[in-house]
């Protein structure tokens, strides 16, 4: 446990020791603001909820999460520090969890900094706080699932750009396979079981449940099993590299 925390602290230190972290947070806040108020017409809707705020999150995460996570293992491979890390009394899982949790925590910090939006709706009307909390939960879990994917792709290559692109592709697939505009087209020719399967592995169906204020155990299981699956794949890749 202590080892995981040591590794996580180092990763967080690495984020905040460079300006990239602050730039990232500012970009994240600007983009959420822009999409909520300009594109989503938050004020014109005149409704005291954060639907236009949350609806954009998976799309922002599509690029921002790979940007945050792409260095996790690629950098270790490039610098050769993996050799140092894995000859310490550290297990593969401790290292994976330490890195993953650090980046997830970083994303959580960025997400928490969007609180002025909550304050704004609170001031303008009487929003359903439980629903907003569920929304944040869904958003955080989506970020976690995307981050686990990025962990996996970054263990594949020492090149961060390649790791970024691979991760965006996988995340995009998970968004699109249950995104209504796509499923509407697919529905015309695909067999029902395929549509069902796609809707289940797609992020959007599960994400939207949270936005409606529903915390369903099936959605929780989906996100956690996605995280576990991709982190497990990461451990397999890392072990194979040392075989």
């Amino acid at each position, binding site marked *: 446990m*202590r*080892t995981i925390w*040591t*590794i996580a602290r*180092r990763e967080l*230190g*690495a984020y905040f*020791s*460079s300006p990239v972290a602050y730039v990232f947070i500012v970009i994240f806040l600007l983009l959420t603001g822009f999409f909520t108020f300009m594109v989503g017409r938050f004020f014109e809707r005149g409704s005291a909820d954060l639907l236009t705020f949350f609806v954009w999150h998976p799309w922002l995460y599509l690029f921002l999460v790979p940007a945050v996570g792409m260095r996790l293992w690629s950098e270790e491979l490039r*610098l*050769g*520090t993996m*050799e*140092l*890390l*894995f*000859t*310490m*009394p*550290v*297990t593969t899982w401790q290292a994976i969890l330490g890195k993953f949790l650090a980046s997830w925590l970083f994303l959580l910090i960025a997400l928490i900094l969007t609180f002025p939006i909550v304050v704004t709706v609170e001031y303008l009307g009487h929003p359903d706080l439980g629903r907003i909390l569920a929304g944040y939960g869904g958003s955080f879990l989506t970020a976690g699932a995307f981050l686990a994917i990025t962990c996996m792709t970054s263990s594949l290559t020492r090149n961060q750009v390649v790791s970024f692109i691979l991760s965006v592709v996988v995340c995009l697939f998970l968004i699109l396979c249950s995104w209504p505009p796509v499923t509407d087209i697919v529905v015309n020719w695909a067999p029902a079981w395929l549509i069902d399967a796609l809707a289940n592995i797609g992020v959007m169906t599960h994400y939207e449940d949270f936005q409606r204020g529903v915390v369903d155990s099936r959605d929780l299981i989906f996100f956690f099993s996605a995280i576990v699956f991709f982190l497990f794949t990461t451990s397999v890749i890392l072990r194979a590299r*040392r*075989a």
Partner: protein
Amino acid sequence: MITVEKLTKSFGPKLAVDNISFSVAKGEVLGFLGPNGAGKSTSMRMITGFLSPSAGKVSVCGFDVVEQGLQSRSRLGYLPENAPMYSDMSVFGFLSFCAELRGLFGSTKARAIDRVVQLCSLQPVLFQSVDTLSKGYRHRTCLAQAIIHDPEVLILDEPTDGLDPNQKHEVRTLIREMGREKAIIFSTHILEEVEAACTRAIIIDRGKIVANGTPAELKCRAPLAGTIVVSLSGIGWQSVQPDLSTLSFLDKSELISESDSKTMFRLQPKGDLLPEVLTLAQKRKWRIDHLNVEEGRLDDVFRAITLPETEKASVE
């Protein structure tokens, strides 16, 4: 403390390490010699548990590095080739991180860091970013990381690579001193280093161990070791030769150089030749300028053992 049994590693069809066995006891400093690509780093990576062996067993302090990895890894310190470090950290931050992974916290950690900073003379760069260090400090910082928990076993992959002569000397002295109560393996391709710091050396070539012994033993295997080089003045090769043929322990004699006043030649012995030569010199009243029994140089041993057969022929 380190036991390596029939260790083998193949990368696809390529055999990088081929069935090597040896052991290192406490108080021993084992030099790992070999040309580039011989498999030194690969062997060390398997001993430290970073790479898993294709076949064979390694144990460190009695713990199998595969089955009981955590126990064996916590007892060894490792300096990887090229001294990799996290580029965004300071020297202090890096050492502190490594100490914590080694299970050192609080005041124990502070003391451990103090000790290695002293040992490796890192005070001037303690708060400098690892990225901006000179190669000498970089290597020493990574070495400090390897000894921060005062391990029983140390594996150092080319610890003096890229250092200037003074720094090399310091690191060698450090290795020799630590070697008294630890088991150390270090790889190098600088042969004086072996004589300066090792109690034993292994020469490895194309994945196989081709020689294993103390530096003195290895030196005896030099092609010219034990030959006697004599330089005489006032006498020519023509007149020396007949006398030489009377020596019973002489295998071969060979002229090295001859000028008006000096003759220099090499005698290859097949027994206790030296007293015979001295008696002969006295009898003939040779004026000996110089007489030397060659010790044999590790360089020559190394070249003789590790050159591929084809190249050996062309060198001769």
